C-alpha cells in the first residue's frame, strides 16, 4: 500500500518536475538559511563565550581618569596615570577582593636568535595569573622576589612562542627585549581572542617593576595603566566596587563632591551584556531564517492546493474504484512530506556548504551542530505535514460524485 503510494507520489512529482523542483526550492532556501544563520549565530556565541571564559571571572577593572562625561574615560591632562602599584596593593587587602594585578604595557621588538617579533610587553604582578585565571603550559610564573629584585624574566604567550621558537622549548632560553636579555620562565596556555577581538596570546608578561624601572623610560615611577581586580564571588561584585571607590577616593584624597580621578568597570557585566547581545542577534537570525522556512511551507501548501484542484477527477476515479478518504489524504500528504524532506536534505547540504564557504571566505567562526540540523529537519517535516494537511484534507473530503463530475 505505502509502496504503491510512494510510487504514485513519485510518478506525479516526476510528471510535474519543474513545479516540484520550484516547490522544493522554497524548502531548500528556508532550511539552508536556518542552518547558515544558526551556524553563524552559534559561532558568534561560542566566540563570545570563549572570550568570557578566557577573561577570568568576577572581574573589575580600575582605570585612571574619570568617566562622568559621556561614559568615556578622560585621562587627567598631563598626568599619565593617577593609579599606582601601591593602589593595587591596597585594593588587594580589601576583604571582598581575591586579587588585584596592576598592569603597564608597551609594544616592543623581541629577538630570539635570528627571529624577531613585535608584541605587547605587559608588566604586572604574580596576582595577574590567578586574576586572569591563566594557566601555564610550561615553566612557572615569576614571584614577588622577582618583583622586588627587578629581575629580567619573562612569561611568553603562545603566539610569541610560535613565532620566536617554533617547536623549540623556550623555558630557560634568553630573549632580548629592547636589546636587554630576559630569561624565559614560563609559557602560558593558549587563550584565544579577547572580546575585542585581540589575540590574547600575543603577549609577554614581565614583572611590573622591571618595566617601570628598566624598560619604559618615559613613565612616571610607580604609575600603572590599569588594575585588574578579581572579586571573591559574583554576589560581592557591587560591594567590592563600592569598597574600591571608597578606598581610592580616600587614598587619592578626593574631597566630598569632587569627581573621581579613576573609573571602576565591571568587566563581567560587560561580558554578559556582550553575550546577551550575541544571543539576541543569534535569535534574530534564527527568526528571520524561520520566516523563510515558513514561506517555503506556504509554497508547498499553495502548490498542493493547485495539485488537488488539478487532480480532482483523478481523485474521483480513485474513490469510484474504492479509495477511502484516508487513502486520498495519505497520498497527498505523502507528496507534501516527500517534497519537504527532499527539500530539507538538499537544504541541509547547501546550508552546511554555505556556512563553511562563508567561514572560509570571511574568516567568521561558524558552528554546525547536529542539533541544529535535526531542528531544521524536524521543522521541515512538520512544515510539510502542517501545510500539506489542509490540501490533502480538502481532497479527501470530496464526495466521489462531485470529484468525478469536476471538469
Amino acid at each position: 500500500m505505502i509502496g504503491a503510494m510512494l510510487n504514485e507520489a513519485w510518478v506525479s512529482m516526476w510528471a510535474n518536475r519543474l513545479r516540484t523542483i520550484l516547490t522544493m526550492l522554497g524548502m531548500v532556501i528556508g532550511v539552508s538559511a536556518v542552518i547558515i544563520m544558526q551556524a553563524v549565530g552559534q559561532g558568534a556565541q561560542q566566540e563570545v563565550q570563549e572570550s568570557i571564559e578566557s577573561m577570568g571571572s568576577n572581574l573589575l577593572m580600575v582605570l585612571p581618569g574619570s568617566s562622568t562625561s559621556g561614559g568615556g574615560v578622560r585621562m587627567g591632562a598631563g598626568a599619565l596615570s593617577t593609579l599606582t602599584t601601591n593602589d593595587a596593593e591596597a585594593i588587594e587587602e580589601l576583604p571582598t577582593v581575591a586579587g588585584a594585578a596592576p598592569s603597564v604595557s608597551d609594544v616592543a621588538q623581541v629577538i630570539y636568535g635570528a627571529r624577531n617579533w613585535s608584541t605587547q610587553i605587559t608588566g604586572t604582578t604574580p596576582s595577574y595569573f590567578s586574576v586572569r585565571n591563566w594557566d601555564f603550559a610550561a615553566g612557572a610564573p615569576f614571584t614577588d622576589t622577582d618583583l622586588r629584585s627587578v629581575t629580567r624574566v619573562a612569561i611568553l604567550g603562545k603566539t610569541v612562542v610560535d613565532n620566536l621558537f617554533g617547536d623549540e622549548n623556550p623555558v630557560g632560553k634568553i630573549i632580548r627585549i629592547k636589546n636587554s636579555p630576559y630569561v624565559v620562565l614560563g609559557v602560558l596556555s593558549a587563550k584565544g581572542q579577547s572580546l575585542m577581538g585581540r589575540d590574547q596570546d600575543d603577549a609577554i608578561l614581565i614583572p611590573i617593576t622591571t618595566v617601570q624601572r628598566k624598560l619604559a623610560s618615559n613613565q612616571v615611577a610607580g604609575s600603572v595603566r590599569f588594575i585588574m581586580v578579581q572579586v571573591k564571588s559574583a554576589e560581592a561584585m557591587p560591594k567590592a566596587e563600592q569598597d574600591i571607590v571608597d578606598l581610592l577616593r580616600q587614598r587619592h584624597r578626593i574631597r566630598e563632591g569632587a569627581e573621581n580621578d579613576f573609573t571602576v568597570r565591571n568587566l563581567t557585566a560587560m561580558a554578559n551584556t556582550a553575550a546577551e547581545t550575541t544571543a539576541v542577534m543569534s535569535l534574530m537570525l534564527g527568526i528571520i531564517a524561520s520566516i523563510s522556512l515558513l514561506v517555503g511551507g506556504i509554497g508547498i501548501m499553495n502548490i498542493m492546493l493547485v495539485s488537488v484542484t488539478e487532480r480532482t477527477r483523478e481523485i474521483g476515479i480513485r474513490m469510484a474504484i474504492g479509495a477511502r478518504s484516508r487513502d486520498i489524504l495519505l497520498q497527498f500528504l505523502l507528496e507534501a512530506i516527500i517534497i519537504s524532506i527532499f527539500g530539507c536534505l538538499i537544504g541541509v547540504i547547501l546550508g552546511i556548504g554555505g556556512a563553511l564557504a562563508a567561514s572560509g571566505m570571511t574568516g567568521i567562526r561558524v558552528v554546525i551542530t547536529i542539533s541544529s540540523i535535526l531542528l531544521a529537519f524536524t521543522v521541515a517535516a512538520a512544515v510539510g505535514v502542517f501545510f500539506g494537511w489542509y490540501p490533502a484534507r480538502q481532497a479527501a473530503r470530496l464526495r466521489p460524485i462531485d470529484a468525478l463530475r469536476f471538469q
Partner: protein
Amino acid sequence: MIGDSVPQGDNEAAAREVASGPVIHIRNLRKEYTSVAGVIPVLHGLNIEVMPSEFVAIMGASGSGKSTLMNILGCLDIATSGSYLLNGHDVAVLDRDTLAHLRNDLIGFVFQGFNLLPRASLLDNVALPLVYSKVSREEREARANEMLGKVGLAKYRDSQPNQISGGQQQRVAIARALVNRPQLLLADEPTGNLDSHTGNEIMNLFKELNERDGITIVLITHEVEVAAYAHRLVRLADGHIVYDGSSHEGAMSKNPTEYSAAVHSTS
C-alpha cells in the same frame, strides 16, 4: 469526518454475502439536485429490482436521469429519499469507508469516458482497485496481468492510456472494473464513445461475463443494438420508469405509451 458508529465489519460482510434475493432493490427512490436555480427533481420515485445474474439495459432520452440513477446504484451518490438495498442492505446507513469498500469489492464501474489514470501504465490502472483492497504487490500484478489478458491487451501492459485506441481503453476500464471480481458491473454508456464494431466487441465481452461468470450487469445505452444484448430493458423518461420488461418483442420501440403495468406490480 468518517462516522465510525456503524459496525462496518458486519454490514460489509452482510452486503458482500451472495444473497438469494435481489442484488439491487430500490423503492420509491427520489433524487433532487439543489442548484442556484432551486431544487430540480430528477428521479421521481423509482422502483426496480435486479436479481443476481440479470443483464439489464437502461435506456432513455438524454437528461432523463439515467446517469443519476447509475451513480446512486454505484454508491457514488446518495438518493434524496427512498431506499436502496444493495444485496439486501440499506446503503443509507453505511459510512463513507464502508461505501468505499463496497465500490472496491462488490461493484465494478465502467464509465463512458473510460476514466483511466493518464500517467499510469495499463497494468497499474487495472491493478489500482487491488491497491485499495490491500492485495500484495505480486498478486496485484498477477491478477491485473490476467485481466488484461482476458480483454486481449496483455502485450500493452506497460503502455499508457493515451497510446492505445478508445476501444482498447474501454477494455482496460472493464478489466479494471472486473479485477476485484465484483458481483455487480455498472456501465454508463460504455460504448458511447466507440464505433459500432468496437462497441460490439465490448458488448460481447459483457455478454460473456454475464453468461459465463454470472456477473450481474446494469448498463446504460441509447443504442437499440446495444440494449439487445441485455435480457431486460428499463426505459426512463423524465425521471419515471416508462417500461420495464423483456428487451425483445417490440419493447425496443421508443414509444412511451407502452408503459408497462408490470412497473407498478414490482412495488
